[in-house]
């Protein structure tokens, strides 16, 4: 198996982009990443695109071909393009498929992208589309919503470990703080614990400010064999681990409602592949679709003991400059959550950090970063570890 490097990255701006279509945002991300890598279309061997639900959000399937076409990669050169879907983990999984393609030796230059255009439908329709990531037959039919499922995780976490609404709110406050320095972030406004607790209740105990928003956006990276990466860039970022795990589709079937066993398993596989431990990670982008999800993630990935995610957050240990900076991009909460793009956006953030290009949100001396992307309430987890050193 060959070592793989990221040689180019691009995020579009994230937010409500009324004036731009699905294909507009994807092409911007893809062209930007290819430009950053300095490769030409003829060099591209394949592309993988994470997209959760073009069918429901823009009534468009056959996303792979569409994107290849509008990126100018279909005419004459006929670059193969594959759509990858794992709900909100679609982006992370597209990246993983791209890494497979390069690592296997089948392809050399590969684009891994992710995209979602969520604001072309009314928000109840968007929520309904997202609910399809849970078990429609046995959760959705009873009136379950995504905030509702994560609220049930939060409720039990509070009951078992004494986690508080204030601790949940601290996740949102920190992520908005980080997001203000991210040019692509959907929300650069600052919030306080009080404003989170005063915001309307969506699914008790989760307020609207505990929830990530509905977002349009796309992200892309260009992958290459590590042996040739220096031909394209002075600062290739190496893929040290790619890992994925599955768990039950329904929350009610989990071994422990407050642990995402898929995150634990994917994290363990990633640490083994990279021959690293949590203490070796300088920063991590975790899947904070809801504030409770970040608390579970830092526990499940070994950055906090089980049950102490809330306290660790409240103590400031996950801020930039502290023990383990979490979600320097602003996370899904502040940066936004175009579901198919998020997993790739996380990788773009880590690459920018490891290159030292993250501006005011830069983690000093960052050498190793991790991404953690979750599908549904935890039925899929994808974890990657990236490093400046091969």
């Amino acid at each position, binding site marked *: 198996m060959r070592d793989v490097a990221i040689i180019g990255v691009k995020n579009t701006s994230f937010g409500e982009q009324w004036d731009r279509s699905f294909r507009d945002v994807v092409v911007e991300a893809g062209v930007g990443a290819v430009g950053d890598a300095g490769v030409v279309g003829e060099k591209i061997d394949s592309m993988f695109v994470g997209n959760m639900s073009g069918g429901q959000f823009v009534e468009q399937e056959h996303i792979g071909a569409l994107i290849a076409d509008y990126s100018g990669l279909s005419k004459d050169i006929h670059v193969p393009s594959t759509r990858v879907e794992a709900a909100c983990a679609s982006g992370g999984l597209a990246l993983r498929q791209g890494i497979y393609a390069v690592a296997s030796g089948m392809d050399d230059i590969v684009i891994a992208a992710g995209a979602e255009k969520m604001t072309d439908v009314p928000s*109840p*329709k968007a*929520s*309904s589309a997202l*609910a399809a990531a849970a*078990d*429609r*037959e*046995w*959760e*959705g*039919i*009873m*009136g*379950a*919503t995504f*905030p*509702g499922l994560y*609220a*049930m*995780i939060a*409720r*039990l976490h509070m*009951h078992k470990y004494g986690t508080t609404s204030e601790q949940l709110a601290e996740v949102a406050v920190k992520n908005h703080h980080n997001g203000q320095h991210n040019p692509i972030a959907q929300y650069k406004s600052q919030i306080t614990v009080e404003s989170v607790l005063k915001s*309307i*209740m*969506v*699914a*008790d*105990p*989760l307020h609207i400010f505990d929830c990530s928003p509905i977002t349009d956006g796309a992200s892309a990276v260009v992958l290459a064999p590590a042996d040739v990466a220096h031909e394209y860039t002075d600062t290739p970022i190496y893929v040290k681990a790619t890992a994925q795990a599955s768990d039950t589709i*329904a*929350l*009610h*079937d989990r071994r422990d*409602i407050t642990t995402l066993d898929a995150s634990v398993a994917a994290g363990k596989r990633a640490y083994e592949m990279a021959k690293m431990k949590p203490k070796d990670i300088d920063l991590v982008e975790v899947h904070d679709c809801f504030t409770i999800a970040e608390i579970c993630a830092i526990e499940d990935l070994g950055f906090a003991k089980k049950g102490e995610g809330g306290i660790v957050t409240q103590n400031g240990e996950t801020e930039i400059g502290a023990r383990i900076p979490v979600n320097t991009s602003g996370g899904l909460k502040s940066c936004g959550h175009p579901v198919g793009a998020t997993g790739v956006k996380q990788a773009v953030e880590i690459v920018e950090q490891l290159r030292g290009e993250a501006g005011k949100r830069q983690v000093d001396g960052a050498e190793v970063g991790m991404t953690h992307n979750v599908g549904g309430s935890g039925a899929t987890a994808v974890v990657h570890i990236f490093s400046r050193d091969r």
Partner: protein
Amino acid sequence: MIIMSVPRFWRKQIARYNLVGTHCKKCDEYFYPPRNMCPGCRREGEIEDFKFSGNGEVVTFTVIHTAAEGFEGQTPYVLGIIKLEEGPSLTSQIICDAKNVEIGMKVRPVFRKLGQAGERGMIYYGTKFVPEESEKC
């Protein structure tokens, strides 16, 4: 609103109405929602239908204020994970004043309307839960 297409709902009607799940005779594991493949012994499993008593307790719950599509008229409603006495857990609504619901509370099943496909459309029924001590309702 459409919760689910008629044939899709109808296929699992007995399971939804009467809490009929499955049981693996080999592993002695119970499944609700029903599974036809035992995750314990997979192809070796011997699966049979099993009707659950419906007695259980609340593992966790939430009060939903922003409803799922089709449930807008029901807010706020209590959604919970119920652990049945035979072992498996399921997601359902708990019909109870939200302030009286607590983790560990004993519940029993009731046959209730889940929703309706438009004014003249099909009515969906299923199993919801109420506190065992009915004064908590």
